[in-house]
């Protein structure tokens, strides 16, 4: 594996994307600039690709790789083997011709910059698919081709058929893309890597895996939808609503070829087994026959070419399905030939459409005398499509016939394949003949709006180049396409050296043999069929063929819509209660399922369990009564708050009892602040809860049962956990707390040091919560609802300021403030070694401030403090963040902590850790967030306050 980086390879891929971005900035009125830019980008990328030719022919695989998702083992890697080179050449070479053609094709009112931007975007996506060196990246680009082809097919967005066609193509190929992703993920699971080199070398592992058949089906679903294989072919004819340059590009060299590219790419890993043989060959054969026969009966020029494309894709798929090395070579060869002649035919059809205003073969007749050069070009290209000798299509068709006759491993197919091949050949000749005869001969044009004439000189150039290629390859295959075919087929078969290639010869004449006979029968039969059809039933009078899978597609889509609608109505009825109930029930169901599927692991501990003493039992009883009481009296809200306050106190006592002094302090302080906030809010809300449905019973038993289930479940889990032994990572924190964190209080050390990044996020959330409250209530004025006497702590009640102020409280509050602030600072300072820290100190400070508000009224308190709590949040976050950045400056990762002991007179050695500054940020942020919320609610009743 060559490890050198080929940045030029990355540039080859990036150029089209960069071009697309630049084109989006080009005005649509600059028609020439847009076309020149697109052409230049395509040619530059093509030239870059060609510089790799010597390496590719030297059995090297140029690569480029950068890390992308290292944790998933997925890199952004490109590799250029023979197959990728072939496809890259087709994509960029035919792409350049399509750009030239498109420049002349677009009408004056078609925005050229947008068109070429989409085209380059698509080109880049296709290049990505063929260059990707791992399967995840391949899928990403695969989906990009679906998206960009959607944009291209729907380019004429004012036309309904274009929009419909684009939507259908996206739905079908997008669905296939999802299947492919699933298949790729399974491959990754089986192989242990998404890397293409490893996957392609893991044939045995993959094919012995029980997951092989699902993998194969999923990957094939992706390939078949993209390559329009039966029964997913129906999107392709409808994609003909696209501008013809797009059809010429998508349906010759690119989009649909992505599917067969995938077959070729995955062949070394997934091919060479019965499942592959049967699925791929039968899908290919049905598509080949169906497409060829249906094509004869199309009246639309592009419709005929569309079904012909489906048929030829079927042929290529069938060749890969035949599962022999030589059939694979033939498949690769036909990919090249089909791309060349089909692109030229689409372009010819576009010229005819452009210069006559119609694509209907019932109108188009006798154009030979109006556009002889175009007619000649189309004639040669059709000959290639029909497989007439001296054109390139003949060679790959002969190879196909050879492979069809040597299928010997399967009795049934030994006869079926040659017959099917001959029939398809006959149909191919018939529709090719119709394309030429019906358009250029067969009487005079009927009801055309324009007088037909030759197109502008340079619009024909791409067709000429392609047709010349058809002939040169057809006559001198070994000297022209031979080497390219060889390297591409070698890469497809995943053979490291050219010498390992199976033997084949590229020449027109192989002697008199069965394939030649089949060709002759197909030729003669095709002409006969066409003549008979025109004579006996006159193809012009044939109506629409019976419906195709579009009907099924429409029914499918309609049903999905209906089901989705029903499901939405069932679950999304606009009732929050319904949603919450669904969430809770789902959570319970998931938990029950988990317990049922995975019975509890571990042994129940036999250790003697501590039993609760009388005091503990008593406190617990108080707690349970308080909690249940909250529910029972919840309609009387103020009473419920008292019960809830008791419940909160019992929670704090629980923390005390179970060795968590920091938690107990925090819980206690938060409890105070929460209750005050709730009482404040109750000033503006009804003091009672109305029953939910008038006249209904008071208890909702359904909810009660769900709630009990949730409670029993959670309690049961707690009990199960507590009765089992466990291993914890926490000894690490205990052991490193003093030596590395510089603090004895390991809870605080974890918060401000080990998990400081978490804490930074959490104080940011608290600060944001405060800001949200402030913004939600900004500028609102609400009357206090006074049906009950005002609650004691409510400091917004609508009474004279003096009437609700207690002098005693004011005196006490004034005295308490400095003391409380001192306590707060003390708790902040000691937090690293003893219970305390930024959170607790901040809450103490906030409570001290709230007391001033309660005692003096909000207006006076704010006037005397003039504190802008929003800024406190900002300073706090800044302090915490800067501490983290500080460690960057001295070369450590974000938030690395350091500490030193300073000797302070009277107090002694004081540890000053950088974490202290972080904790200062926590402190400020907690005060800011808490006070912001409280002050905003408190302000609501004061119309006099400033609306800052």
């Amino acid at each position: 594996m060559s490890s050198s980086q080929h940045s030029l390879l990355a540039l080859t891929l990036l150029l089209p994307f960069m071009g697309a971005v630049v084109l989006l900035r080009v005005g649509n009125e600059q028609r020439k600039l847009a076309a020149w830019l697109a052409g230049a980008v395509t040619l530059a990328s093509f030239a870059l690709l060609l510089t790799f030719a010597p390496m590719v022919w030297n059995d090297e695989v140029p690569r480029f790789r950068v890390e992308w998702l290292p944790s998933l083992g997925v890199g952004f890697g490109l590799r250029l083997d023979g197959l990728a080179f072939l496809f890259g050449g087709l994509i960029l070479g035919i792409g350049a011709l399509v750009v030239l053609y498109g420049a002349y094709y677009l009408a004056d009112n078609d925005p050229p910059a947008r068109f070429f931007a989409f085209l380059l975007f698509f080109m880049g996506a296709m290049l990505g698919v063929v260059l990707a060196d791992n399967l995840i990246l391949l899928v990403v680009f695969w989906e990009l081709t679906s998206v960009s082809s959607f944009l291209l097919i729907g380019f004429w967005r004012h036309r309904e058929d274009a929009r419909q066609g684009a939507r259908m193509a996206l739905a079908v190929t997008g669905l296939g893309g999802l299947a492919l992703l699933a298949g790729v993920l399974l491959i990754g699971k089986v192989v242990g890597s998404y890397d293409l080199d490893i996957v392609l070398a893991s044939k045995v592992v993959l094919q012995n895996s029980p997951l092989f058949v699902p993998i194969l089906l999923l990957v094939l679903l992706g390939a078949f939808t993209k390559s329009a294989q039966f029964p997913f072919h129906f999107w392709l004819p409808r994609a003909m609503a696209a501008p013809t340059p797009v059809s010429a590009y998508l349906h010759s060299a690119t989009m649909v070829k992505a599917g067969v590219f995938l077959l070729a790419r995955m062949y070394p890993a997934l091919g060479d087994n019965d499942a592959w043989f049967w699925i791929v060959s039968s899908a290919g054969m049905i598509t080949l026959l169906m497409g060829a026969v249906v094509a004869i009966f199309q009246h639309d020029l592009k419709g005929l070419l569309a079904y012909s494309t489906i048929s030829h894709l079927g042929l290529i798929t069938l060749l890969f399905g035949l599962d022999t090395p030589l059939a694979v070579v033939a498949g690769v060869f036909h990919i090249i030939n089909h791309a060349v002649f089909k692109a030229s035919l689409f372009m010819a059809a576009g010229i005819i459409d452009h210069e006559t205003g119609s694509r209907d073969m019932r109108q188009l007749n006798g154009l030979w005398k109006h556009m002889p050069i175009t007619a000649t070009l189309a004639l040669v290209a059709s000959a290639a499509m029909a497989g007439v000798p001296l054109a390139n299509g003949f060679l790959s068709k002969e190879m196909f016939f050879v492979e069809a006759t040597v299928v010997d491993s399967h009795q049934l197919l030994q006869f079926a394949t040659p017959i099917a091949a001959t029939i398809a050949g006959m149909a191919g000749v018939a529709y090719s003949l119709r394309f030429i005869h019906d358009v250029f001969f067969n009487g005079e044009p009927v009801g055309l709006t324009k007088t037909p004439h030759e197109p502008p000189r340079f619009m024909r150039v791409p067709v000429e180049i392609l047709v010349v290629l058809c002939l040169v390859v057809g006559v001198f295959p070994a000297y022209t396409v031979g080497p390219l075919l060889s390297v591409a087929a070698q890469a497809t078969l995943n053979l490291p050296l050219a010498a390992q290639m199976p033997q084949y010869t590229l020449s027109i004449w192989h002697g008199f043999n069965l394939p030649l006979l089949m060709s002759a029968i197909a030729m003669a039969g095709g002409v006969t069929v066409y003549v008979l059809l025109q004579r006996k039933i006159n193809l012009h009078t044939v109506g629409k063929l019976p419906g195709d899978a579009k009907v099924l597609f429409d029914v499918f889509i309609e049903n999905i819509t209906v089901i989705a609608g029903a499901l939405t109505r069932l679950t999304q009825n606009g009732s929050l209660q319904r949603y919450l109930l669904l969430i809770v029930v789902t959570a319970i169901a998931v938990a029950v399922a988990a317990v049922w599927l995975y019975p509890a692991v571990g042994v129940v501990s036999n250790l003697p369990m501590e039993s609760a003493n009388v005091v503990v039992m008593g406190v617990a009883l108080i707690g349970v009564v308080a909690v249940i009481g909250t529910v029972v009296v919840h309609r009387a809200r103020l009473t419920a708050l008292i019960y809830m306050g008791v419940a909160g106190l019992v929670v704090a006592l629980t923390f005390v009892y179970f060795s968590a002094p920091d938690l107990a302090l925090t819980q206690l302080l938060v409890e105070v602040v929460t209750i005050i906030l709730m009482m404040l809010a109750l000033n503006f809300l009804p003091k009672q809860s109305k029953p939910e449905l008038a006249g209904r019973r008071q208890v909702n038993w359904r909810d009660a049962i769900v709630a009990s289930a949730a409670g029993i479940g959670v309690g049961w889990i707690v009990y199960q956990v507590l009765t089992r032994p466990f291993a914890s990572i926490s000894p690490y924190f205990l052991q490193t707390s003093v030596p590395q964190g510089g603090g004895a209080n390991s809870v605080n050390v974890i918060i401000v040091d080990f998990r400081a990044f978490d804490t930074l996020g959490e104080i940011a959330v608290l600060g944001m919560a405060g800001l949200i409250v402030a913004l939600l209530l900004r500028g609102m004025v609400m009357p206090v609802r006074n049906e009950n006497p005002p609650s004691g702590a409510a400091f917004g009640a609508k009474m004279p300021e003096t009437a609700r102020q207690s002098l005693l409280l004011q005196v006490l509050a004034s005295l308490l403030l400095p003391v409380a602030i001192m306590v707060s600072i003390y708790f902040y300072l000691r937090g690293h070694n003893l219970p305390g820290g930024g959170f607790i100190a901040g809450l103490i400070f906030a409570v001290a401030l709230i007391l001033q508000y309660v005692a003096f009224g909000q207006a006076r308190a704010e006037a005397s403090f003039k504190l802008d709590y929003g800024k406190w949040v900002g300073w706090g976050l800044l302090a915490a963040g800067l501490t983290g950045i500080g460690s960057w400056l001295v070369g450590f990762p974000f938030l690395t902590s350091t500490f030193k002991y300073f000797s302070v007179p009277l107090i002694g050695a004081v540890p000053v850790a950088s974490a202290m500054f972080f904790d200062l940020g926590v402190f400020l942020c907690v005060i800011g967030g808490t006070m912001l919320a409280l002050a905003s609610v408190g302000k609501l009743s004061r119309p006099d306050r400033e609306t800052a």
Partner: protein
Amino acid sequence: MSLALLVAIGVGVLMASGVYLLLRARTFDMVLGLTLISYAVNLFIFFMGRLAVGKAPIIRAGVPENLANYADPLPQALVLTAIVISFGMTAVLLAVAVRSYAENGHDHVDADGGPDVATEAATDVATDVATEFGINVPPPTGSAPK
């Protein structure tokens, strides 16, 4: 009764009560429910570090630093911030409740007043209920922002 069973029952009762209130139709009841649920969740996480009595995780010199001598500090650190965050959540929900009451003129969790508002509009039951609870049926009380 073992301590484990006792605390399990405690968490279960908190969770059940919280969920029942969460499913009520009035905003304030829902906030009460969420507060009880956050108690339950905080205790749940805290108890995952097992029950330790008299072993606060404050390192004392000479005492080996292991879980036999100290309570597990990690769940405590997680819960400490969680307590403060639940306050933030409660504050935001209360602000939403107040704002919603001002804008909609009722304190139902759904802006359209839920299924019962329609029922009430059609009948006089609302007034009866209100009288029964001694409430004046509130007119829309919110005023437009300045």
